[in-house]
């Protein structure tokens, strides 16, 4: 049984369908990267999985099975027990997710006391342990968030998410607001932590480069739908969906001789209107007539899949040719 099994999830904000019939599974210990641009629905997906959507955001249909239990129908009081102990979240800007009027120690203690109370001395040890784990000197435990740099605060929010050793962590753009050197540092840190703690994660980001480095598999999202899922290495070497191909070209190899950021002309579609055909068709360089009328359901087979008429064709050509 997969740790997380999202089935036909649709999330709406009023008449805007932000997540459209998304299905994906996450195995124990796996990091699934979710990549998309603003408005693609990637953050909404993360919030829906944890049921932290703010009104008017609402799950319209679908199931989110966590160890076989459907979180969508789970009572809020039962969900509260699972949050932090079994599922935790790291928000985009750690600076805003931390309580500004509580010391770092207090924030760790609050979480521990609320979910897994232990003695004072054990708690003190635990805080020191967690801070060391993210390479922060434990003497900072008695500082307030504003006394620390953005990178330190983000590392602290990662440590906070890990303190109760959850099985699943949702990372929502954990490195976006940070400088590139600090970003690199946090990504390296996360890789080490994962080998120690064996957590599973949904790693949501717009930065395909970072996601490809950290995730085992990558799901590319466009206009509320997954357009492609592949193991990271394969996605990098042989992207099937034209959107993935175009997105990859926006992240050139910094060491290559020629650097040319191509970009993708056009803008993402208006999600309040449901249009027939493929949502990417108006921006697609390989568009065909049927792309404008026939939509394609995304099917995940053995952890991979693509929703593109063109991809199906090239497969056929390969088989016959």
């Amino acid at each position: 049984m997969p740790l997380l099994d999202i089935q036909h999830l649709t999330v709406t904000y009023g008449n805007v369908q932000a997540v459209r019939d998304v299905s994906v599974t996450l195995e124990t210990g796996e990091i699934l990267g979710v990549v998309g641009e603003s408005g693609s629905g990637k953050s909404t997906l993360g919030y829906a999985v944890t049921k932290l959507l703010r009104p008017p955001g609402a799950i319209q249909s679908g199931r989110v099975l966590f160890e076989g239990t459907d979180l969508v129908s789970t009572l809020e009081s039962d969900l509260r027990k699972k949050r932090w102990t079994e599922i935790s979240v790291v928000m985009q800007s750690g600076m805003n997710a931390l309580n500004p009027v509580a010391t770092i120690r207090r924030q760790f203690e609050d979480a521990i006391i609320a979910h897994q109370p232990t003695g004072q001395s054990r708690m003190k040890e635990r805080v020191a342990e967690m801070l060391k784990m993210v390479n922060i000197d434990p003497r900072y435990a008695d500082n307030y968030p504003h006394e620390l740099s953005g990178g330190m605060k983000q590392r602290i929010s990662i440590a906070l998410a890990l303190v109760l050793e959850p099985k699943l962590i949702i990372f929502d753009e954990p490195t976006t607001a940070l400088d590139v050197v600090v970003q690199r540092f946090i990504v390296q840190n996360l890789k080490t932590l994962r080998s120690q703690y064996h957590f599973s994660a949904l790693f949501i980001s717009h930065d395909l480069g970072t996601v490809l480095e950290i995730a085992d598999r990558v799901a590319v999202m466009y206009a509320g739908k997954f357009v492609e899922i592949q193991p990271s290495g394969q996605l990098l070497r042989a992207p099937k969906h034209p959107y993935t191909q175009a997105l990859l070209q926006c992240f050139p190899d910094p060491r290559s001789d020629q650097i040319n950021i191509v970009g993708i002309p056009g803008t993402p579609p208006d999600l309040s209107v449901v249009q027939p055909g493929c949502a990417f068709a108006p921006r697609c360089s390989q568009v065909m007539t049927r792309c404008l009328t026939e939509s394609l359901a995304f099917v995940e087979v053995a952890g991979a899949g693509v929703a593109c008429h063109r991809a199906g064709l090239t497969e056929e050509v390969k088989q016959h040719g």
Partner: protein
Amino acid sequence: MDSILRLGKVSKTYSRKTNGHEQKIYAARRVSFELQTQHIMALVGESGSGKSTIAKLITGVEHADSGVIEFEGKTLSAWRRGHLAEYRRNVQMVFQDPYAALNPLNTVRYTISRPLVNYRKLHGESLHNEIQRLLEVVHLTPVNEFIDKLPFELSGGQLQRVVTARAVASNPKLIVADEPVSMLDVSIRAEILRLIEELRSKQGVTFLYITHDLISARMLADEIVVLYRGTVVETGNARAVAKNPLHPYTQLLLQSIPNPWATEEQPMALGILDRTSDDGGCVFRARCPYAMEVCHQGVPELTNAESDHLVACFLHHDATTQMAVQ
């Protein structure tokens, strides 16, 4: 070569009080560089490197503590004496956040008309025609679809085009673009970068492109200036600096860019990420994996390492002759 802008040993210090102690922040320390007419120069650095301070000093929003800024051979203080409006007309700015740079209550037409009315005294039909032309220049076409829109009706990329059209409206010679693409989606960035390139080649505008992104700097710019805590650590031909950086800080920046193409994990010497005191010595020494004795004693000056490539690092110096003790 024809230089349009020259900074000579420009310094700017801010001070703030922490726990009752006055603390000095060196936002710019003896920054010198020269920008050639119709070139694009990238100013690259992380947050706190002082790159936005330099933008403010050049556009005249802030005053330098010392040093000289020359635009078209005339110092900024000379421009300030009675010619400030002309200076502003010639030196325009594009900001990072297009959502914040435009008045939400003003239409595209009104926004772009302001510099045309104020600086170029256009009105009536000639004003309307010029607005139309500018929207075409920034590729907001068909023009009639955009001209009467309010900011909330446009996407981030479209808004940044409006901001750019406004900056170009006064026919400036120099545009300082402060992180013009970092708020935009990656798929949109290329178009704005291409627009900058086009304005340079077709309209002859010189650009100072401020960014934290070494890759886009390499793609767009002719020259790169790398800043670390207010100090120029490396400068030169864009390709040379961004592909074969000589300063350990620029090397760290390049290594930090996510690179899934790298065949193996590149081990990185990160050093201490926190700030250190500024009591002489090289600004980067606390984080530098190659820090030597001499790095603690003196400040390395920018010196030619190769033609078109200068670096301020003792690794690339004959230390005894180049050391400038503060």
